[in-house]
């Protein structure tokens, strides 16, 4: 296994040249319509979030709403719970590379915690689910921009009952803990429908996420036929946060792809949600 995961989506979902990427991220943070409009209202109580993972053209500014909240020196470990779009590999898969590279530099894996999680036998370190998977990679340049020094636990979540997510959430809470840790789930919301349906379904999904109940989120996504690609990582995030006691969620921004570029009935919903310690 190579020590370094080279970027697989630079030049596609985000610029491949360092200066262009920095300019694009700056645009996302300064965007007044979809982003935080240049405001950095850092929060000492933020413990997690749900952020979109489309190309920065579509959802980068939306994601920036969450990243603008992060104090630059508070977090040392970022748990990135990603979608598994390919369906390959383990159901709870930790990317095994020692470093994840982006045009902004290399991000280290928290090797010690990755090994301890693997010892729990719920998680596996394996590469397959991370090949051709962009949901974690596209978050890294934002983290590299707003944080000083950090390591990551990149985990794709692709299958599991409520019971298995409960076990995984308990393991994350016990082994990783919340001290200097930030938990991020990477997910877009409803996919490829017209505006009214997209907004209606996104509302149910967002409301469910804000309830902090993984059970309610999974139930509503299924019953309302919502195609939320990161429902499982989001449910695992909620389960993990619930292990830490009371928290509250806040919707920072929601828009759909048609707000950026008209696409008829092919809209995708994007939301930036933050969770705070109560």
């Amino acid at each position: 296994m190579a020590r370094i995961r080279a970027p697989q989506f630079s030049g596609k979902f985000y610029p491949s040249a360092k200066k262009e990427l920095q300019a694009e991220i700056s645009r996302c943070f300064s965007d007044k319509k979809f982003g935080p409009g240049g405001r950095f209202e850092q929060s000492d109580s933020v413990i997690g979030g749900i952020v979109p993972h489309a190309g920065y053209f579509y959802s980068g500014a939306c994601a920036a709403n969450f990243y603008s909240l992060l104090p630059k020196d508070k977090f040392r470990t970022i748990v990135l719970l990603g979608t598994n779009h390919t369906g390959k590999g383990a159901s709870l898969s930790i990317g095994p590379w020692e470093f994840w590279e982006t045009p902004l530099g290399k991000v280290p894996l928290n090797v010690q915690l990755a090994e301890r999680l693997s010892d729990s036998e719920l998680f596996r370190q394996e590469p397959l689910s991370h090949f051709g998977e962009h949901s974690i990679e596209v978050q890294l340049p934002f983290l590299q921009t707003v944080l000083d020094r950090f390591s990551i636990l990149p985990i794709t979540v692709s299958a599991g009952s409520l019971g298995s997510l409960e076990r995984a959430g308990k393991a994350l809470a016990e082994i990783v803990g919340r001290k200097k840790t930030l938990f991020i789930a990477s997910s877009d919301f409803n996919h490829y429908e017209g505006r009214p349906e997209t907004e209606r379904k996104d509302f149910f999904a967002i409301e469910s996420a804000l309830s902090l109940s993984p059970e309610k989120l999974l139930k509503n996504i299924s019953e309302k036929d919502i195609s939320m690609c990161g429902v499982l990582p989001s449910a695992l995030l909620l389960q993990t946060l619930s292990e830490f006691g009371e928290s509250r969620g806040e919707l920072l921004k929601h828009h759909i792809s048609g707000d950026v570029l008209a696409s008829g009935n092919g809209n995708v919903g994007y939301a930036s949600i933050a969770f705070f310690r109560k």
Partner: protein
Amino acid sequence: MRALLSSENNYKGNYYQNYSEKGEPENAPEILA
């Protein structure tokens, strides 16, 4: 929370005004999600 949903924020169409001068990316459909 509803006030943040897009329709009620009057996001009604294609007006991504402050994107770079390059405009729409060539691979726009592939990076929707």
